[in-house]
């Protein structure tokens, strides 16, 4: 308890607050650039922190982490380009809102949702680590498989126009996800001998292509700015208030994110996608999702920031990173002689808790820094397309190239852009494609692993968590099919 209180007081020292704010500001900008994210940001930070006190380095990192997770949503909403993979789901409704001239509301909502989600996550980190770290021990291959299957099952629920279309692109995503090295057999699949495909196609390449690049071409074709002739309407605070009006969604998705952050095999992108899809499936106005429903912005943004604190839990408890970003964070900690593991909470004391409180305060920092910036950024949607389109194209190329440094990736992005453009014209739900892409590898490898370990499918009913998830899967698939049936029947009876 002392550590917590000591950390609290230490974290509000002006010097420390300054570091937090600098980190947050840098993080927001880094996150906003597609191709760069919290992982790169913290990695770049490490050499700069050599002379610093560990506390200051950690507070900078906390700011960057929180800021980057939020910053990616700025380009998602304004330009339709995901700034980081975790913000992909935000594009689905955030960008249509900008097109309707409601960018201020969308930005305000994503800001608030991110802050709230992050807040819950960091509180969990501080008080619930011993409890939550146990989740890691209960989530083996069968559970991860079934969880990913639930995610795929949500495809059925979210393809509201037609099931076959959703399945078509969903399974396309699954197939594309198999390109690259197969961890189970060691063979490189579907690479056509091209070395660049040996590791599969990086998610950002596809996301930037399908969302950003295709929007750019569409914009050039329609010869209009993002919001067209619609005047900017709505206020920032409307978006902020929306998070509280729809408090159930905000809370639900935050909890979902906190849980998924600590779960092995799930991270920010999975959390955001699942939050989005489940919200879409369960809300009454489900058909407006994808055309600019603010709930579709609140859900993923709450979830992805909610994975921040909980992903740090297994990192600190066992030295096993819960995500790529927490892996780099662990590196930063180790260089400053804070060694993760069971001794950590006993030894490191106030530095550690100052860091935790820093994570909490940075949630507020993004709001304080974000609000003034956003009023300015929201105007991007009225910038004439002749300037915006080349800027977006350059940004997409930049972001794609930054991932691995290969021109090949840029070419692929371009190809996916064209594909995405036509798929959207043909009304295929891209949500399903992204779900298939993200969840595919988890589904396949964990299915095989479970089969190797058990020899048969018995893991589905002999393990309680897996069984519960399997029942959930059945419900997720059956309910959307059966509900309209019952509604019809009721209508007929009347």
């Amino acid at each position: 308890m002392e550590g917590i209180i000591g950390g609290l007081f230490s974290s509000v020292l002006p010097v420390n607050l300054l570091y937090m704010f600098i980190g947050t500001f840098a993080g927001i900008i880094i996150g906003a650039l597609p191709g760069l994210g919290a992982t790169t940001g913290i990695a770049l930070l490490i050499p700069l922190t050599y002379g610093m006190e560990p506390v200051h380095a950690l507070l900078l990192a906390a700011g960057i982490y929180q800021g980057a997770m939020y910053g990616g949503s700025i380009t998602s909403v304004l330009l339709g380009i995901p700034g980081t993979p975790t913000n992909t789901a935000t594009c689905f409704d955030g960008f249509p809102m900008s097109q309707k001239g409601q960018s201020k509301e969308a930005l305000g909502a994503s800001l608030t949702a991110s802050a709230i989600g992050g807040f819950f996550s960091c509180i969990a980190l501080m008080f619930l680590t011993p409890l939550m770290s146990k989740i890691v021990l209960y989530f083996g291959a069968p559970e991860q498989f079934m969880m990913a299957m639930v995610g795929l099952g949500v495809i059925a629920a979210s393809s509201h126009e037609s099931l076959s279309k959703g399945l078509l692109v969903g399974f396309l995503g699954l197939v594309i996800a198999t390109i690259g090295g197969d961890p189970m057999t060691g063979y490189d699949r579907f690479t056509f001998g091209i070395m660049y495909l040996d590791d599969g196609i990086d998610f950002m390449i596809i996301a930037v292509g399908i969302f950003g690049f295709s929007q750019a071409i569409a914009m050039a074709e329609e010869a209009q700015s993002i919001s067209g002739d619609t005047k900017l309407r709505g206020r920032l605070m409307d978006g902020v208030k929306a998070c509280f009006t729809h408090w159930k969604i905000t809370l639900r998705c935050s909890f979902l994110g906190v849980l998924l952050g600590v779960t092995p095999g799930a991270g920010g992108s999975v959390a955001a996608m699942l939050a989005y899809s489940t919200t879409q499936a369960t809300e009454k106005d489900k058909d407006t999702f994808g055309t600019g429903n603010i709930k579709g912005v609140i859900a993923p943004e709450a979830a992805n920031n909610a994975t921040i604190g909980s992903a740090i839990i297994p990192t600190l408890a066992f030295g096993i990173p819960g995500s790529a970003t927490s892996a780099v964070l662990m590196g930063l900690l180790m260089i400053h002689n804070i060694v993760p593991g069971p001794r950590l909470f006993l030894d490191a004391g106030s530095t550690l808790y100052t860091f935790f409180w820093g994570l909490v305060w940075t949630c507020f920092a993004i709001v304080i820094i974000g609000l003034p910036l956003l009023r300015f950024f929201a105007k991007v949607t009225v910038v004439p397309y002749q300037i915006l389109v080349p800027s977006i194209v350059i940004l997409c190329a930049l972001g794609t190239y930054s991932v691995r440094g290969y021109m090949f990736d840029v070419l692929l992005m371009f190809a996916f852009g064209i594909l995405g453009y036509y798929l959207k014209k043909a009304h295929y739900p891209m949500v399903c494609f992204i779900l298939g892409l993200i969840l595919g590898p988890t589904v396949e490898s964990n299915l095989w692993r479970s089969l190797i370990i058990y020899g048969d499918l018995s893991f589905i009913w002999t393990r309680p968590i897996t069984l519960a998830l399997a029942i959930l899967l059945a419900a997720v698939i059956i309910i959307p099919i059966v509900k309209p049936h019952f509604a019809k029947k009721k209508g007929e009876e009347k």
Partner: protein
Amino acid sequence: MKKALAMLLVLVSAALAVYAGGSEEDLSKWPSKPIHIINQSAAGSGPDLFIRQMQPVLQKELGTSLVLESKEGSGGKLACDYVWNSNPDGYTILAHSSPLTTVTQISKDCEYSIKDMKHIASIDATPYAVIVRADSPIKSVADLIEYCKTNNASNANSGIGGAMFLQSRIMADALGIDYAEVPYNGGQPCTLAVMNGDVTFTVTSFDVVMNNNQVRALCILADERVAAIPDVPTIVEEGYTFPFLTMRRGLLAPAETPDEIVQKLVDAFEVALNDPSFTDYAAANGINLDLIFGEEYQALDAQIYDEIMQFVDYL
């Protein structure tokens, strides 16, 4: 239209001027721009952290800044290929982990091998160990053999055809036991799999037990005990001996890098690795330092390569 063309011409010349800045290098002025160290594993992993720890001293010794890039994937081959094909001017170095690289090169039929690359420094020698869950009933090698006979035992490895897989197969043959091989994406998920009970054990570098009380080392796969965990017996003590793989993390340069530059790198690393800032870090994290430089390292790697070639049937 003419205006546009004129502007384009101006631009091309401007670009030429900009690019002309970074052109041919004079050997005697090396290093005059940042040196890139390419890592086979992601940021935050072992070799990456070593370099970051050494960075201040290295940068001072070399007189230029270091840029760490991670090109993970394909079992380390992507990073290796990249460095192999890069300009041998001393600005691109590979941070690699043997025998991972060697095993990958053999199993993927690489046209070149690390024997051909210039060796700079080897940092540590981390033996493998058999890791079980802390509460596992298996307490000795004899227990393990017994368990494998009566139950469906399983081992988590970092990928079929990888180094952990190879060591596991060699051990299985030597001990005469049979168990399932469950592949995972890399080393860390393997430890996790042991922790949550999916697999019985994993054969990996022993340092995973250092900060994790959920797992313990059953025995070390080496001839001698390890200073960091002195209570763990070696498998030799328990009566079995067979070829052991040792994880050695080190730095390599492309084949045609001039010898003077390699020597400068060797000297700089010698200073950085012996500096207390690194040795203290190593001690705190249980890293078994085994510093070998230049030609000695080259000879060692060649020997390891030949040893591993003997096991090509397993791969």
